[in-house]
């Protein structure tokens, strides 16, 4: 056990799974970097450095750079998965999914069902997501509501270095297509991460803290902001539960409903856009399944229904923050 960054935790997961299973291959744009140059090999190790060092350990046969052709290489991941590899493919920014969604939505996600149960498609599509890096509208989206909407995909959103490692190993071992989303603002966050290999199961929420006054359900980077809000609220005598579902598909409806019912007051915090979004999905679940226990409206704390703006002042206002979360909790507890 030692303190590691979110990035290092992911890197370790990849290393350990590649070592454990020769069928695991990694590919994507610049997952090594430097091909055709006269400088450093593995110069990038991925745009965010997550795949750095894999090349030296596992060689070019298993760590492959690609041309800028997401449809081709994401589709290749599907075809490779169908035929015996376990590809872990990187889309640098999840925003780029628009050029290759078909290979995810209509192909990999549907093989098993369309083919009458005969296909296994053990592939992981890793991508960064999220606002905060001043990357503007085309490099800052969350987009997991789109993946969560599509039957056949599993969708993972780790919030801590510990979960990042355990969920990625689980994802690589899973026999279904998994969308693994890494919030780019978390890469340098540190936390305790066991050195040995371990898995965090899909569909099991993490109960971050427990408190009887209200339940906050939050995803990814928003979990930390919910924790900040909880600290402020605790000083006011408001004790909240925070649930981090960790995977949106499968979703741990049991834990969500348990705390929704226990507290009767729910705030859902998410950085995806609000319409048909993750917060709406959770709120609708609760409004259907835990209605009788509810004591207050289910509040959603999300960005506005706008693209992500560039200027820091605007982007900071775009994302939910601890103040807005605390405010929503106050509103439900005072209801």
């Amino acid at each position, binding site marked *: 056990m030692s303190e590691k960054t979110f990035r290092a935790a992911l890197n370790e997961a990849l290393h350990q799974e590649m070592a454990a299973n020769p069928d695991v291959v990694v590919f994507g744009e610049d997952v090594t970097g430097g091909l055709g140059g006269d400088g450093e090999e593995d110069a990038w190790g991925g745009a965010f450095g997550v795949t750095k060092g894999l090349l030296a350990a596992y060689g070019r046969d298993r760590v492959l750079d690609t041309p800028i052709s997401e449809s081709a290489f994401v*589709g290749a991941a599907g075809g490779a998965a169908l035929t015996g590899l376990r590809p872990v493919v990187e889309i640098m920014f999840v925003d780029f999914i628009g050029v290759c969604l078909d290979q995810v939505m209509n192909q990999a996600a549907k093989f098993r069902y369309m083919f009458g149960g005969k296909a296994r498609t053990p592939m992981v599509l890793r991508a960064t997501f999220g606002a905060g890096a001043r990357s503007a509208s085309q490099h800052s989206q969350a987009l997991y509501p789109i993946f969560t909407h599509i039957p056949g995909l599993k969708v993972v959103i780790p919030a801590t270095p510990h979960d990042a490692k355990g969920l990625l190993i689980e994802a690589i071992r899973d026999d279904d297509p998994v969308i693994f989303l890494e919030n780019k603002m978390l890469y340098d966050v540190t936390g305790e991460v066991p050195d040995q290999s371990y898995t965090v199961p*899909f569909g099991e929420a993490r109960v971050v803290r427990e408190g009887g006054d209200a339940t906050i359900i939050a995803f990814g980077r928003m979990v930390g902001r919910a924790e900040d809000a909880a600290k402020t609220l605790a000083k006011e005598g408001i004790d909240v539960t925070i649930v981090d579902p960790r995977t949106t598909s499968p979703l741990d409806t049991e834990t969500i409903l348990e705390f929704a019912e226990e507290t009767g007051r729910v705030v859902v915090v998410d950085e995806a856009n609000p319409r048909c979004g993750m917060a709406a999905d959770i709120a609708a679940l609760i409004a259907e399944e835990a209605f009788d226990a509810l004591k207050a409206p289910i509040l959603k704390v999300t960005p506005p229904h706008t693209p992500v703006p560039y200027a820091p002042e605007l982007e900071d206002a775009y994302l939910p923050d601890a103040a807005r979360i605390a405010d929503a909790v106050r509103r439900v507890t005072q209801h």
Partner: protein
Amino acid sequence: MQMSREDLARAYRTMRTIRAFELAVNAEAQAGRVPGSTHLYAGQEAVATGVCMALNREDHIVSTHRGHGHSIAKGCEVGPMMAEILGRGSGTCKGKGGSMHIADLDVGMLGANGIVGGGPPMACGAALTAKTKKTGAVAVAFSGDGAANQGTTAESMNLAMVWNLPVIFVIEDNGWGEATSAEWAVAGDIVKRAEGYGMAAERVDGLSVGDVHEAARRAVTRAREGGGPTLLHIETERFFGHFNGDVDTYRSDATKEAQRRDRDCLNRFRAQVTEAGLMEPAALDAIDAEVEAEIEAVVRAARDAAPPDPATLTTDVYVSYGYEA
């Protein structure tokens, strides 16, 4: 033709099976017994047959919306295929896929595909598996002339070159993408497009199963020897409308009649092998009769088969857990 007599008989049987299968599907569709729509492969038999005869069971193919011929040529059983098209529980995909999603991974058939251009990337993946695991297998992507204009096809050609993959792109040019001619929609030249990627490429007469087979063998050999991808631009004919509901008014009757008369790969095969004394008319007739009987039985069985178990609506979305809405 450079095929052995045995191979000639095999080729003919495959082509004839595809033709008979498609005519039967068409009849079922006309009679209202095919729930969805379906795209018939009749006229293109020499392509699937010639290519797949150059493959082993371990090799993979990816197909298109017009996939019955590829499936049969790669070894899918016609019984479950017909049942699938009729929406039966005994179908290749348990009735969940239908005509456009027939797949049989056990024989290396990775699926028909409802998305034009959906297949080439997948073929690159299958080829990557072969290369990484050193299985010696190759992968073939069948695509149409229309699919040649889809960006996925172009990307896949480049990726296949850059990764030096054992993959073969078969562009089956039947002259039409739905109601739009390739002459209008495909700018330039498909062989030259491949050459623009530095890829080996050749144009092939798709009415000659021998020519197709030879070209496929060259490509397969290149791929197995580590020589990388090949594109085959195969000129062929689509006998029916785009799908079973297409009345096909965009071609004149004269054109369609001439096509059936002069450009039928089965007729051409028969003429060639009998003239060359490679097969007797009687042997060909015997195959015809056998195939006819087989397909008839298959249709009867499919009609009689039970629909899927309603519980299967929600099964097999995932491998590793059942999921509730």
